[in-house]
């Protein structure tokens, strides 16, 4: 019966010089131990492929506070932060998009916000079938509404269709009309804000996703390198032990 304690000591080069000599002699004659030793060495080689992850540990309890620049490097973007940032950005953009564009043409009547262009409304209705005017203030808006109503009525009369706008507001735009237009503007802005918020959130998610993938790749690569380095260091230590033993035996 072979001594397995000696075998494992031989496997790790962790044994007294006398034991080593005994084992050397034994291996010359014992095929079973030679085969087992070879198999266990193979197992050790396989074990070296198991590398732990290499997270940024940075235990904080006695570590000096990092400088603001370092702190900023470790800053991460969370979904909640992304939404908040999107909201702030949307508000900023919405405030910049102050212009209102009213379009009137063959496709019908539409009101939407546009890019910030402060173009004064033309003083009178032009003859072209498509008209774009801006309404920076309430007096202009009232004037344009009255003008539009008039043009609608003209068109309706020409085509013999039923009136789109009821009578009673022909002379001047009522407060209800202004509320209607304001509501349409608000609805339009709200839709645009939602679209913008969704897009910004998506972009932030994409950036965060890409950052995480890059980080994971780097971490895994480092873990693998660390595993190789650890194994090399252990082997080197074992070699030193052997050299020490040889030196002592001399």
């Amino acid at each position, binding site marked *: 019966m072979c001594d397995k304690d000696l*075998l494992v000591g031989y496997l790790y080069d962790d044994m007294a010089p006398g034991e080593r000599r005994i084992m050397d002699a034994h291996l010359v004659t014992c095929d079973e131990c030679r085969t087992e030793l070879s198999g266990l060495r193979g*197992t050790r080689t396989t074990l070296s492929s198991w590398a732990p992850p290499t*997270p940024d540990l940075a235990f904080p309890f006695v570590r000096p506070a990092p400088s603001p620049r370092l702190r900023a490097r470790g800053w991460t973007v969370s979904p909640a932060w992304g939404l908040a940032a999107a909201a702030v950005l949307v508000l900023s953009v919405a405030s910049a998009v102050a212009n209102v564009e009213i379009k009137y043409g063959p496709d019908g009547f539409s009101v939407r916000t546009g890019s910030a262009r402060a173009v004064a409304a033309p003083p009178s209705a032009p003859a072209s079938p498509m008209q774009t005017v801006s309404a920076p203030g309430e007096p202009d808006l009232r004037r344009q509404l009255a003008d539009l109503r008039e043009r609608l009525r003209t068109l309706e009369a020409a085509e013999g269709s039923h009136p789109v706008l009821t009578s009673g507001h022909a002379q001047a735009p009522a407060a209800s009309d202004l509320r209607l237009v304001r509501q349409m503007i608000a609805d339009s802005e709200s839709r645009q804000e939602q679209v913008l918020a969704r897009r910004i959130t998506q972009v932030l998610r994409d950036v965060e996703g890409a950052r995480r993938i890059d980080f994971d790749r780097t971490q895994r690569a480092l873990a693998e390198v660390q595993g190789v380095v650890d194994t090399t260091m252990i082997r080197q230590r074992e070699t030193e032990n052997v050299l020490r033993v040889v030196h002592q035996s001399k």
Partner: protein
Amino acid sequence: MTTDEELVARSRGGDLDSFNQLVVRWERPIYALAYRVIGREEEARDVAQETFLRAYRALGGFKGQAKFSSWLYRITLNLCRDWIRRERRTPVSQAPEGIDIIELAGETEPSESIEDLVSRRELGRAVAKAMAMLPEEQRTAIILKEYHGLTFQEIADMLECPLSTVKTRLYQGLTVLRKQLQERGVEHVFGHGPERRLRAGSG
């Protein structure tokens, strides 16, 4: 380089910076030990952090009869044991199940094919799973010897058991590992080139 013993002496005198140096020096081995014993990243991190907290609190009681690293290892192993008992479960491998070939392509070294890299990853996963199946005392002995390079005597002192028990645990654990890895299709090809491969179609 300042030795651990010098840094410990200064730390005991209230020098936080010295203890901080010890933390920086040993945090990664301690984390690796905890990770390999309990098999979970976040919990291993918690155990590692708790190890240093306990060490700091107990510095006054550390008389230097053992190496500082051995003392830290012992604290870590006790915490791991507590965690395993508390959770009443065996360690699990957190290795990802799927492998993205496209992603791997970017990580391949010039001398290494994707196939080799996949093999290396698969090997790591196979080892983690096989290790998780071992009894705790065999797993701990293998981890301390194989990955931390401790001597049999240091392990025996740390685990408070006879030297022959350590060798027996190692031998038994390695034998079981060898068998399990063979059953998982890991074979060894010694010589030049990649030393380890998974047989095609094996799990």
